[in-house]
């Protein structure tokens, strides 16, 4: 379960270009719920994800994951509870290390790292099995350096790394936006399968209105650092792309382009 209580963050406070990124934002996501976050550029989507992951320290407000207050926890401590897939495939993987080593790093996300050997036969076998679900042949390239993979393969790897170990919270930051349409579809399908199979509490930021309509059971629209609209249940099931775009105020043409 994720709970954000009146989160507030101001950049460049007191300067001419002061920017209110989060303006008392409150949000709650029940366990197993799949929330889709939409909103125009600068609405606070990235700030919100950064605040949840710990990369951004709030001026005020609280963030709770499964009831535990993580507001003052550094990024590496929160990592035990949450996993994140970035828009840029380069950010979520260690380029100069092999596929197997990257899987190992993710595997140890929430446990204490020891002085025992990292990669062993048991682990390799389980990583191969998990990667084979994608059908991209990554399971045969365990010793390949990740920077030799394509963007789509890297992003698929990031996804498998993130959902492994069933994190309490999965953050997806426009994770298919940088991919070609076919690869984006493969990654999106893999995401939906993993989220529903593992019943992961998920928050996905997207500019793709079709994704917002097709997936998830709650749509959250942000504007100027606040929740402008929340659609859930029956209403969410019936909503269309046209309905969603209708909610974007004057700044709609950018969103139309993006959808």
């Amino acid at each position, binding site marked *: 379960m994720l709970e954000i209580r009146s989160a507030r963050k101001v950049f460049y406070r007191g300067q001419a270009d002061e920017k209110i990124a989060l303006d008392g934002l409150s949000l709650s996501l029940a366990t197993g719920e799949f929330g889709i976050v939409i909103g125009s550029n600068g609405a606070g989507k990235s700030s919100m994800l950064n605040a949840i992951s710990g990369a951004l320290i709030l001026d005020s407000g609280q963030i709770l994951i499964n009831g535990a207050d993580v507001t003052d926890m550094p990024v590496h401590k929160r990592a035990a509870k949450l996993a994140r897939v970035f828009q840029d495939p380069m950010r979520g993987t260690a380029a100069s*290390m092999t596929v197997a080593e990257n899987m190992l790093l993710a595997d140890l996300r929430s446990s204490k*790292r020891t*002085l025992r050997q*990292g990669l062993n036969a048991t682990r390799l076998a389980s990583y191969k099995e998990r990667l084979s679900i994608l059908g991209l042949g990554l399971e045969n390239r365990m010793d390949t350096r990740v920077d030799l993979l394509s963007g789509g393969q890297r992003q698929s790897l990031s996804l498998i790394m993130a959902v492994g170990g069933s994190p309490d919270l999965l953050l997806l930051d426009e994770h298919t936006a940088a991919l070609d349409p076919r690869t984006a579809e493969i990654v999106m399908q893999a995401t939906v399968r993993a989220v529903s199979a593992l019943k992961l509490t998920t928050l996905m930021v997207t500019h793709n209105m079709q994704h917002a309509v097709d997936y998830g059971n709650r749509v959250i629209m942000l504007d100027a650092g606040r929740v402008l609209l929340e659609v859930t249940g029956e209403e969410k099931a019936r909503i269309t792309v046209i309905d969603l775009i209708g909610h974007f105020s004057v700044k709609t043409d950018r969103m139309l382009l993006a959808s």
Partner: protein
Amino acid sequence: MGFIQDVLASFVAIMPVTLAQSLILAFVVLGIMIPFRMLNFPDLTSEGAFPLGGCICGVLLAAGASPLVGIAAALVAGFAAGCCTAFIHLRFRIHTLLAGILMMTMLYSINLRIMGKSNLSVFGSPTVFDWVPFARPGFPASKIVVAGLLALIAFMLLHMFFRTEKGTAVRAVGANPDMAEAQGINVWAATIGGVGLASAFSASSGALMVQSQGFADVNMGLGILINGLAALMIGEAVVGKQTVWRQLLAPFAGAIIYYQLVSFCLAAGMPPPDLKLATGLFVLAMLALPSLKRSRGSAPAREAIRE
């Protein structure tokens, strides 16, 4: 013909001495490689940590301490110096190179304070090289055995470490610190520990050098960094750096080859004062090679710093 024979004869004659020296200095090369390649933290601390280890060991030997105590103290002091450099970089967001320059400048004064004078003779004090059976003390054979054994142990321990869970995490910090942090790795701890470990190796090299040459000098670190870099470049060119095993072997192989090359150049009549210029040109050439290969046109005005 006579000239070539003379050169070869004098080169071969000093080969064992050079080998002993290069095995001792291989630890500095290791201390340069670990931050540079494993942590993506180009570090200059070794230029100060090497004499730091030497000075501490010298003072302890002069006071009658066991040579092992001297090395252990050098390790601890070097570790602390490396930790300071990493902390300066992490806490105050100062560039790693500048943090290293600050640290080595401050270490110069500290080294002088430790010794109380600029050099100290410890000739005749017991050394770790005395303990080799069947070898006359003070001769290169015993130094080769001791330094070679230590190098082998360090290589094997590091090779094991970088394949453990913790070691993989340290390498991830070098490969992608943001990703490492998101995977629950404490980037500060890994960086401080890793750079500290590297400086500990540099300092232990200084301690061994003092025991080998019989005196400590505050200026003994002068130019050690550029020599170490040159050795590392040669090692990587010869054994490669694609795997952890090769990357760890490169400092040792590089040190051995580099110092033999230097001794050959000196035997061939190169004036010693030109050595630093030659070494600098060599390192520059090795660093410039990739960009010369990549494109014939001039590089963009300000690319990312080449590493």
